[in-house]
Structure formats: C-alpha cells, structure tokens
C-alpha cells in the first residue's frame, strides 16, 4: 500500500470509529495525519499507537479503537488479497494424522507462552485438526466455541483446581480465541471469495465489565461521573424550598396562650422525614454479573438523593438503607450486604411475588403519590407466582415506578422472565446494562427529557 493509498483508508477507518460512537472530528483527523507523518508508519505498533493517541481520547474510546482497528485493517487486508487473488496454500495437510492429545498439549503450550506468532500457528492447527470434523458450521462464533470445548481450555480462576493440566490465563485464552476467530474468518473469505458484510460491534462487546473480580474501577468511574451530574441536578431542586413555611394551624394553636395574638410563629419541619425514593435491588444468582453494577448504582443514588430507602432481595426482602448510610466505601457496603443483608440464608432463587408482598406490608403506609419506586432486577421468577397484582398495587400507590432490567430488551419475556406482566404497571421500564442506559434513566428520573437512544 502506498502512502496515497493509505490516506483514504485512514479516513474510512475514522468513519467506522464515528459509527461506533467515537467523537472523531476533522481536527482529530488532521492530527492523525500529521502524527503519521512523524512516525515511520510502516511499523505496525507505531502506526497503531500514533493513530490511537490522536483519535481515541479516553480509555473507553481506546477499547473500541482496538476492536475497530483489528476489524477494519483485517478486512482491508483481506479485501486487498481477494482483489489480487493471493491465496495461501494449505499448510497442514497432515493434520488428520496428528495425535490429538499431542496437539492439545502443543496448543496449550503455545497459549501459555503467549507469543503472538505461535498462537496464530496453533489456531490454524486447531482449525485444521478439529474444525474439519463436520466441516465447520459456517458460523464463526459457533466454531470457535466448539474448538475451545474440544481443546478443553479452561481459564484459571474460581474452580480451576480440578482441571487437568495447568490452568491458563484468561486473557491468553481470549487472545487465542481472537486468533481462532480471525483464522476462521480468513478461511471463510477464501472459500466464498467474497467479503462478509461488516457488522457493527455488538453492544455487548462494549458493555460495562460487570463480573465482580473484573474491572470494578470502571464501574466506579462511570458512577462517579454520574454522581457529579446528579449532584448538580439535586441542588437545583433543593434550592427551591429553602425558606421555611409557616405552619398556620400550629401557629394559631400557640397563639391561644397569648390571647390570640400570634407572637410565636411555628414552622413546618424543613426536611420531611418521609423518604421519597424506594429502590429494590435483585441480588440473586441470575443477575450476579449485573448486581455489582446495580449496587454501585444504588451507592451513587444514596450519595445524591437524601430521601432514599433501599432494599435488596432474593427470595425475601431486606432493607439496607442503614448500611449505605453508615458506610462510605462501596466495597465495604457490598461485603456487609452479602454478610448481614439477611438474604443470604435462603435458596438463592428470586421470588418476586413474595418480595412484593413483603415490600407492600412493610412500606404500604409510607407510599404516597410523591414517592418513586425503582426496581433493579431481571423479572425472572424461577417459575414462581409473580403476583403482578400486588406489584400493581405498589405501583398504584407510588407516584412513579421504574424498572431497570439488566437484560437486553430482546431477552425479556423469554424463559421464566415475566417482564411484560410487570412492565404494564410501571411508569417506564428500561434496559440497563451500560452507563449510557443509566444516564438515560437518570435524566428521566431527574425530570429531564430522555436522551435519544
């Protein structure tokens, strides 16, 4: 590729980045070009880094950049190869005769060593050896998973102890999967001699890292930013009722002492005791991956809204407002909730129906049209009675009811999810598994217009 050939490619690449939501302006593009002028752009790392430094302006951007970069330039190279009819000759003809166990060991070794080139070779070997049985499904993702299963690759971690062979680093395995995917795509392109249509990044690829041991910091950062936004919104509303209102009735009462002359004014209490937001958070196993996210959302809400009572539930419900008010540290909170939340002692299956009953019993008197109920959960009842009518009563008494579901809308009402039964009674139900969704929701709660999705 000559330099002239490169310029349109870079522009095209930036277009793709824009399509994925990066804010790549003309000035970034110009910067990218002057940066590419300054580095030897034939060096792959320099090229990539120079582009990244000028175009991706946050860590999140950078993650998307990497994904798009791989996708775009891989496709570009393949398209070029198709055009010039470059083909790779079959290399691993003897693969069928290879001893499977031996191969498994070799691949394991390559993954453990972690060298890029070796992993690529290993991926090809694996495809040649395992992919051939049944000729591949034609769907890359399915093939990758099948090969991975056949190889028995297991990441080290929770239950890594009883696996045969040494456990492998999770990231290394992911790297290997990327190679597999790429080689399979390459083979597919060669076979069909045309480019598959370009797919946008799956929303899930860029969703929040939610597994607890993973990047808690990322969730935190997102929530901190959210907090800031919420904080400014709160002030505005607090400011309006700063002056104390005179309580006429009590003032008149008091004036009787002084012969009907109201000498002493009585005021209404400044801060009504009654909390206005009730949050119910599902912490059962079906939402394990989302519950860290949810708890941090709760945490953020607690910091921002004074009048907030929060509950966690699995089979039964348990109030955790205290925990949030006493502890400032998020990690301590999640530990305490799992320890003394009072929900750990049950089966671990959510019972929404029972939760509504208990909630209503406990809270009924406090619910009024000014209160907002927010439910964080997946509405998966494990086949138990959903008691939608009880939920309806709750929704009726409360002013507003919102439901945040950690599953994509697509999965609602599949399996044991009874989302539709509850959604009817909600003011609005949201899917919520990225900070974007969360912000959207916050805008609605804070009274603003919902951002365009």
């Amino acid at each position, binding site marked *: 590729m000559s330099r002239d050939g490169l310029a349109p490619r870079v522009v095209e690449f930036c277009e793709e980045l824009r399509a994925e939501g990066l*804010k790549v302006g003309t*000035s970034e593009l110009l910067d990218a070009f002057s*940066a590419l002028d300054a580095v030897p752009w034939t060096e792959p790392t320099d090229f990539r*880094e120079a582009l990244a*430094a000028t175009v991706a302006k946050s860590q999140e*951007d950078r993650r998307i950049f990497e994904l798009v970069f791989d996708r775009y330039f891989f496709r570009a190279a393949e398209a070029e190869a198709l055009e010039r009819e470059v083909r790779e000759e079959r290399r691993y003809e003897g693969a069928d005769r290879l001893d499977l166990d031996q191969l498994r060991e070799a691949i394991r070794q390559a993954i453990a060593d972690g060298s890029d080139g070796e992993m690529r070779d290993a991926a090809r070997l694996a495809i040649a050896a395992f992919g051939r049985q049944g000729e591949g499904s034609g769907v890359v993702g399915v093939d990758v998973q099948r090969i991975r299963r056949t190889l028995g690759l297991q990441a080290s971690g929770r239950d890594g102890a009883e696996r045969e062979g040494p456990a492998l680093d999770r990231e290394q395995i992911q790297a290997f999967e990327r190679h597999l995917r790429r080689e399979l795509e390459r083979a597919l392109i060669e076979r069909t001699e045309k480019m598959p249509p370009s797919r946008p990044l799956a929303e899930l690829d860029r969703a929040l890292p939610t597994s607890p041991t993973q990047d808690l910091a990322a969730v935190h950062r997102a929530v*901190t930013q959210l907090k800031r936004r919420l904080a400014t919104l709160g002030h505005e509303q607090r400011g309006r009722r700063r002056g104390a209102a005179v309580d006429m009735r009590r003032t008149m009462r008091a004036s009787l002492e002084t012969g009907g002359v109201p000498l002493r004014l009585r005021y209404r209490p400044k801060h009504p005791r009654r909390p206005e937001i009730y949050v119910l958070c599902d912490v059962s196993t079906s939402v394990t991956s989302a519950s860290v996210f949810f708890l941090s959302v709760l945490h953020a809400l607690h910091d921002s809204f004074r009048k907030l009572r929060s509950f966690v539930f699995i089979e039964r419900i348990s109030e955790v407002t205290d925990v949030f008010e006493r502890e400032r540290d998020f990690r301590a909170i999640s530990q305490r909730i799992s320890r003394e939340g009072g929900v750990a002692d049950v089966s671990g299956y959510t019972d929404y129906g029972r939760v509504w009953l208990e909630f209503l019993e406990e809270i009924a008197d406090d619910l009024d049209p000014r209160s907002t109920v927010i439910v964080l959960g997946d509405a998966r009842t494990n086949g138990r009675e959903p008691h939608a009518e009880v939920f309806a009563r709750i929704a009726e008494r409360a002013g507003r009811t919102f439901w945040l579901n950690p599953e994509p809308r697509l999965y609602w009402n599949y399996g044991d999810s009874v989302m539709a039964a509850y959604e009817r009674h909600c003011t609005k139900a949201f899917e919520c598994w990225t900070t974007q969704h969360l912000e959207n929701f916050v805008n609605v709660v804070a009274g603003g217009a919902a951002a365009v999705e």
Partner: protein
Amino acid sequence: MTPEPPLDSVADVKLALAEVGYLADERAALVAYLAQQLGKPVLVEGPAGVGKTELAKAVSRATGRALIRLQCYEGLDEAKALYEWNYRKQLLRINAQQHQGPDASPPPPAGEPGKGGRATPWDEIFSEEFLLTRPLLEAIASEQPVVLLIDEIDKTDQEFEAMLLEVLSDFQISIPELGVIEARTHPIVLLTSNNSRELTEALKRRCLYLWLDYPEVEREMEIVRLHAPELDESLARRLVEVIHMVRQLDLKKPPSIAESIDWARALLLLGADQIDRPLFEPTMSIIVKHRTDIDLVAERIGVQLGTPPELEAAG
C-alpha cells in the same frame, strides 16, 4: 544542563528517557515523541502512582528544558495560573506620581510609550513591569523552550479548562490591558489527570491522549532495579510478583510504582534475602496505606507467602 540535540525517532526518545531514569513503554515513548514533533499538548491519564508526573519530569530532563509546573486544585483561578497585576507596586507608582505632580513625571523605565506619544500613568501601570507572571504565562513568555506540566487537571472546574484552551491550542494568552502575548518558543505541554471526572471534549480535542497503566512484571522489575540497583535480581522479581498479586486484590489504593521502589529500598536496608510472611507483615505498610486494605492483604497475600520460606507458593 545543556540542551541536547532534538530526538528524531521514537527509539531515540525512549533511549533518552531511559538515560534520565525513566523506563517508558512503547506507547509513552511514541506519544512523547509526537508531542515534540507536532507541538501538541499531551493528556496523560491513569491510576495514581504510575508515573504520570514523573514522565513530565523525565521529558524535561531528557530534553534539557526547564520544567514549569502548575499544580491544579479546586478553586484554582486565573490569578494563580495565568497572571496577576502587582497592585501594590501599581499603587506605589500612582502615589509617587501624584507627589511629583503630573507634569514632572519622568519617563518610566520599562513602560511602553502611551498611545498619544506620551506615557500616561494608566498606561504605565498596566505594563509588563507590573505583571506578576504565574506558571502558564511564565511558560508562554519564557525565552528558553520549557516543559509545562499541568498536574491533576481533573481537580479544577470546567471553567478553568475553558480558560486553558487558548493557551493549549494557540500558545498565547490575551491580557485585556496589554494585548496578546504569544509564545516565543514552543513549550512541550503535559497534562495529567487521575480521571476523577470526565474532561471536556474541547480540551481533549486539543490534546494527544496517553493512558498509562501499571507496568507488566518485566518492566516494573527493570524500574525497581534501576532505582535500587543493589537489590538481588531474584528478590526483585519476587517483590514485583507480590506487588502484582496485591494489585489484583480489590484495594482502596493499590500500590504504585513509587511504593514498590520504596519497598525495595526498605528490603535492602533490612538486608532481606527473601520475601516470606515474617518479613512481609511488618513491612507491608510501605505498600498498602489503608486500614482495611492492610487487613485484606495480610489475609490474602500473607497466607500465600507461607511461614516456612524455601519455596514460594506461586512462582
């Protein structure tokens, strides 16, 4: 320090940084190189203690430029960052002139001639003579090329960021009474941020972006050995491995690179030859600084290290 020849390639930059004691990875070296070539400011983000500020210092040492540092904090304003009029001196001048009488005013030593051909007191007292330069103006007005470090930009408010835009994109500062002061030389600008809030798009747009993360084992080992050269290699490796294990835990404040270096030096002082539990527990306060963190680390790592030394649990 004599100014060194300009650095012409990424490898040169990396080498030059290494010479002044900063082991940059590919990314950091490339961005440092681009910053110099393109004359664009660099926004460096990353967790605390990965050497963001140190990078700026190293760039200053490597290029032989003076370092001008602006430490940001909440409530930082123009008067402390850009310039301020030295009003005491201005008052004195006005006083002095009134005593001498308006006719007898001698031509001011450094004042600009007024627009009417003769300097009026008002023109005089708003001349550079009465200007107190603050870091940003100092960097812009410096005769020698400098490195400007704007540290922890995320601590300031958005208004301050907006004010920075003029400096960062055009390298100039407008002072209403004086006009525009343009940079005489092109400073290398580094901004650091701990990512405690999202910076504005406008600011990001004007910067190159660099995310610094904790280094991998190999590089961190090099760094530790660079700063504590007497430390035995296998001990250094063990130390870095332990540090990495600690970082894996969910801590309030994971140990930074500076803290691994401190710990290495402490081990040297103690004459330790391996890291086991009896050594780890009393010295771990060097790397973890929170009560709850200490408990967690003692529980998780201390156990893994094991009391009987000899062979490590996880090598």
